[in-house]
């Protein structure tokens, strides 16, 4: 089976490079000369909004060979449903991977929106279901359900969503949801059900993923813990007769040479305010795991290179997860091939700035991928079962 490779769209603006943490695209910082969408013409905002830039990233992604993109969702981001519905008709092959938390939408409404979007896009909706980063954010969203219960709710949410998908009448009475005589109307009910990418590192998440996920999605981690996590998901899934696929979200910084790539990191690193090191909060197990992979003192950026080309400092240079690949095009392709050998079936790649890097990675890295069988002898994989 070929590997599905997605390219993220930022829903929180973008910066022109990792060297500067100024978000110049999309009005998340003051709009000044040099800002884009909106830009300034003759002293006035030019009427463009961030979605016009998102449209460019989506088109760049589909043109460069990505199957689609992840649209993340956090309190101060644009909303991925709004973005997907807005951009549905100006892309051709781009799959919209919509990140959402089940608690915020009713499952019948989620089914209705998804089915209408399938009709608007010709079946290009994919789900990235998250059950919450937790902490103060959940109350910001107006959600009082606690961590383990959120996964129980996610399971129920998906039961109802799938229950109404193929028409009705469908009845359900659970802890969180109740419907009676529900079901999508006929032309909506004929749509393909979106593939489900499921995130979460806790035991509750892995259990819920086993039941519902097509792809179990993880942030990039060092290979050993990553393989262990996959093994746990696989083990749990087998007990209920399912076989999920695996996906990894990987930041990529690739250049012609390894030196050039690290030079880019160095320039970003030199601009970091030392007080921002280690700022994340929440009850997410994923965040706690990320931090645990870096042991020992961090005196320079190479101290965060936990194994060759796997670097854990991206969150210091832009918003988002910590781990990614840094290296030459060839090295990055080899690391991705190794991940494929570990059992990865899909990637969500990202790089800053997303528009330009979509072209770079699509043109320079993707063509070098060789896939699962050719590199199983890699020394990095020794002792790790795939």
């Amino acid at each position: 089976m070929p590997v599905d490779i997605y390219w993220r769209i930022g829903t929180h603006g973008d910066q022109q490079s990792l060297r500067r943490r100024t978000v110049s695209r999309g009005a998340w910082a003051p709009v000044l000369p040099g800002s884009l969408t909106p830009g300034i013409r003759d002293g006035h905002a030019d009427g463009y909004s961030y979605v016009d830039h998102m449209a460019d990233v989506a088109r760049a992604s589909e043109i460069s060979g990505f199957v689609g993109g992840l649209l993340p969702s956090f309190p101060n981001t644009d909303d991925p449903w709004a973005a997907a519905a807005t951009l549905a008709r100006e892309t051709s092959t781009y799959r919209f991977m919509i990140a959402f938390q089940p608690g915020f939408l009713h499952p019948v409404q989620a089914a209705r929106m998804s089915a209408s979007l399938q009709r608007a896009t010709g079946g290009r909706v994919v789900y990235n279901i998250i059950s919450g980063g937790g902490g103060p954010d959940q109350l910001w969203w107006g959600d009082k359900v606690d961590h383990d219960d959120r996964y129980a709710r996610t399971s129920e949410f998906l039961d109802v969503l799938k229950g109404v998908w193929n028409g009705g009448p469908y009845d359900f009475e659970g802890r969180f949801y109740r419907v009676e005589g529900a079901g999508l109307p006929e032309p909506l009910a004929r749509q393909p059900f979106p593939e489900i990418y499921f995130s979460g590192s806790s035991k509750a998440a892995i259990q819920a993923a086993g039941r519902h996920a097509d792809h179990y999605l993880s942030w990039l981690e060092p290979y050993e813990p990553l393989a262990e996590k996959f093994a746990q998901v696989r083990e749990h899934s087998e007990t209920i007769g399912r076989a999920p696929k695996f996906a990894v979200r990987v930041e990529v910084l690739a250049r012609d040479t390894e030196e050039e790539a690290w030079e880019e990191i160095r320039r970003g690193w030199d601009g970091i305010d030392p007080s921002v090191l280690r700022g994340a909060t929440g009850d997410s197990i994923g965040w706690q795991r990320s931090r645990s992979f870096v042991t020992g003192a961090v005196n320079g950026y190479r101290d965060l290179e936990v194994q060759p080309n796997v670097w854990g400092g991206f969150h210091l240079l832009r918003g988002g997860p910590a781990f990614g690949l840094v290296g030459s095009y060839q090295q990055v392709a080899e690391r991705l091939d190794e991940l494929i050998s570990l059992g990865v079936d899909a990637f969500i790649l990202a790089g800053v700035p997303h528009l330009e890097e979509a072209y770079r990675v699509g043109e320079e890295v993707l063509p070098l991928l060789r896939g699962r069988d050719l590199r199983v002898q890699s020394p990095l994989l020794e002792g790790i079962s795939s």
Partner: protein
Amino acid sequence: MPRFLITLPARGDGRHPLRRNRGDWQPGAHAVLPPVVSDVRRGAFGPFDHLAQVGRAAEIATFGGALAPFDAGGEESLVVAAGLLRQTRWLRVVAEFHPVIATPVYAAKISASLQRFSGDRLDWQVAVDLDRSVARSQGDFVTGANRYVRADEFLTVAKGVWHEEGYSFDGRFYHVLSGGFQPPLSGRPFPRIHLSGTSPEALALSARHADVHVFRPEDDLEAGIAALTRGRATAGLRVPVLARDDDEEAWEAARTLWIRSGGEPEAVPERGPLWTGFGSAGLVGSYETVAQAIRGYLARGVTTFFLEARPHIEETYRLGERLLPLLVKEDEHAR
């Protein structure tokens, strides 16, 4: 200045009232071209191409907006609204939904992005008193006056997080702690709120929250408008329209519509100021007759009109070219 909007189809459309070949709502209803005619369309068009065309018709025909109705058996209105906003410059799109679709925070969040993407052209119509079985099929088991209590909380919280950073709320239905949008999501105009209904609870809710209270021609307009004076809501009217060059042609079209919709030829509803053959009461007549009826509503205090006319594309162009100019002129004379 009166505002005129069209009502979008939720379940496709067709030239014939019972045929829904446009928008892929009736499998097999598409006319197939015979082999002698080259057909290059295969796979090129999907169901939303029709909705896009209706939206463009409203934009080009100078309508102020379009209502994407809530219809449990139809297309989802926020998805429809987002698509139309993206491909128009002027059109306001009113998305109709009920409070159970999402938490008020999430409904507001989706809407904040749509305001950003569209230059602040999204409006809301909140449907509070759904039919009981429809409500249950959407997961809503709250009944009676409690629906208005919940709608009040829903709108309060949605506006609260929209306008106020650090917003908290602890109500019967919703809870938020230290919520509220930050720039650049904050600071946009909140969608104009449209509500409807004639019960005391409905009118009281509008007095608190609505920008526009939408009546039907059957409603007691005078009593309703009087009840709204406590708030800042203006009056709107959602009304089917069938207008032609002269009255006789319009009534003939009404008769044809009735029969093609499956009505008995002997049972065509009587001609009158309001014709009931649409399924609800509506206006039939020459452009001037219909304009005169609308002037009557303007005189009674109605300022927003949701016109319903099928087939949507053809009738939207017709109304834009023939009916709206009569009313713009009237408005100019009135000033």
